[in-house]
């Protein structure tokens, strides 16, 4: 069971999230129609692990790009205009492009891994959270904890509180 609380004002929503966190409710989700830095700070989200994927992609891309140029030149040796068979200046251009290509693809992969998307199974969600409302979701099965969470949320100025089943 999850408590789903709707707020009309951003400041109330942030206040509720802070109060819940400080009261020991760690399993909360904060839904908003736009990115809010304060909400991310409440949850302690700082540097995203996505950056590791980007770096790994860039390094692998550079290595792959350069290796591809060298390997294909050595498989079929084609001397042209007295140029070197393994021509570093030319190959750096391809290496550069492959660095970016794999960097972008790995960042995309990292985004999916870190954010947990795609996620098509049912999770507590209100359509208004994508329009103009701010929603706090608290997972709680314990009656006493539920009552405490509801008190905090109501005290912060929630517009509406509902309960939803969680899979």
């Amino acid at each position, binding site marked *: 069971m999850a408590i789903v609380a709707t707020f009309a*004002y951003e400041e*109330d929503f942030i206040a509720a999230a802070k109060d819940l966190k400080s009261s020991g409710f760690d399993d909360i989700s904060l*839904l908003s129609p736009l990115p809010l830095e304060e909400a991310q700070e409440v949850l302690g*989200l700082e540097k995203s692990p996505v950056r590791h994927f980007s770096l790994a992609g860039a390094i692998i891309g550079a290595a792959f790009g350069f290796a591809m140029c060298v390997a294909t030149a050595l498989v079929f040796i084609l001397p*042209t205009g007295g*140029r070197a068979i393994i021509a570093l200046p*030319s190959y750096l251009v391809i290496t550069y492009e492959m660095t970016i290509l794999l960097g972008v693809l790995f960042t995309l992969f990292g985004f999916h891994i870190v954010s947990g998307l795609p996620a098509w199974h049912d999770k507590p969600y209100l359509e208004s959270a994508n329009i103009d409302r701010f929603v706090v979701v608290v997972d709680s099965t314990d009656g006493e904890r539920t009552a405490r969470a509801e008190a905090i949320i109501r005290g912060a100025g929630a517009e509406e509180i509902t309960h939803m089943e969680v899979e």
Partner: protein
Amino acid sequence: MFDHGQPSYADVNKDVLSTMLETGPRYWMLLGTTISIAVICFFMPWLYQLFVGIGAAGMNRNAVWGTYISNFIFWIGLSHSGTLLSAVLHITNSHWRKSIYRSAEAMTLFSLMTAALFIMVHVGRVWFVHWTFPIPNPMGLWPNFRSPLMFDVMAITTYLTASSIFIYMGSVPDFAAVRDASTGLRRRLYTIFSFGWRGTAREWHTLGWAYTFFAVFVIPLAVSVHSIVSWDFALSIVPGLHHTIFAPYFVCGAIYSGTAGIVTVMYCLRKFLGFEKYIGQVHLDNLGKLLITLSLIWSYINILELFSTWFGGTSFEIEALKFRLTGFYAPLYWEMITFCAFVPLLMLWKKFRLSWNKMLVISILINIGMLTERCIMVATSLPRKFLPDAFGFYLPSWVEISITVGSFAIFATLFLIFIKWVPAVSIYEVKETLKPLRRDS
């Protein structure tokens, strides 16, 4: 930032989504017209060229490149609009970009697609185009990565992939908004498109980081793409093309024409989709200032090109320069200078910069000038290399002119389809520019 008062969050959803979900007969008529022009002017002449051979184009032994290549450069240039507005202004935290960047990114993607089509048309035997990719084949041959043309293939493929991902990922929260506002098949489709987005703090946080990294990757990529396109020319020893200034010249010209293209597209979005509330004077003013700066840089590089050729004093280069300034194509050269160096100076006056109609005319003139620049670059250099007895001449054939006209219809068609599938103005980023509703307000 908003000319007509600040809208509420709900207004933003309603205004933007209504342009997607409500379609009148005017839209279908416009789409039908652009598709018809694209088929008649682009695909039918291309089919004709495929049947009779590449000789249908005006290219010949001396002029192995023609308007297909000029158009290719022009469209790649237009594609730099999205990168500039979306990535550079995102990194520099410029808030005014937020309501116009989505369409600029779409311009990037569709310009690139149109540019790629010109390569297909130019190569003649399009069914062999896969030979340019490093994929195993029965002949055991691999592409020659020392060739600037292969740099092009890799750069454009990377740019197309990165731009597609960039625009898609930035649209995911808005796809969720479309999902919530629709029913039936559309709802099911957008559930897939939005990956089940709920707008949790973790999702926003991850998207923010990923988007910044995409931007960081895309900026140097865009610079490299047009530099590489310039090396197609500059790495040859053809007089008029063998200049070290070409890479920055191309990149500057690309951003210049792309920004002018954005003004044209913004005008259409305001006029036909009713985005007056979100695209206002502040955008026009900032775009105008950007255009003046780019125009001055572009003019400076042109003067530098003339000076370095004159100062170098090589007879071949001087001959190429004379032909460009006074030869058959001279009227086009001076038209380019007028449209790209002098006309934009009108924007120094605020009354020009803040008038949508005047800015529309200026932006179109700039892009006519930029298309001309690419045409004369090809037509005045390649056919006239070193020895006068080997000089040739190039004039585009009707097939090339028709395909050029048709390419604009292809771009318009893709854009018209886009505005019905993707919110043309970023919903969540516009909300970021609004003052949050406070209990005491």
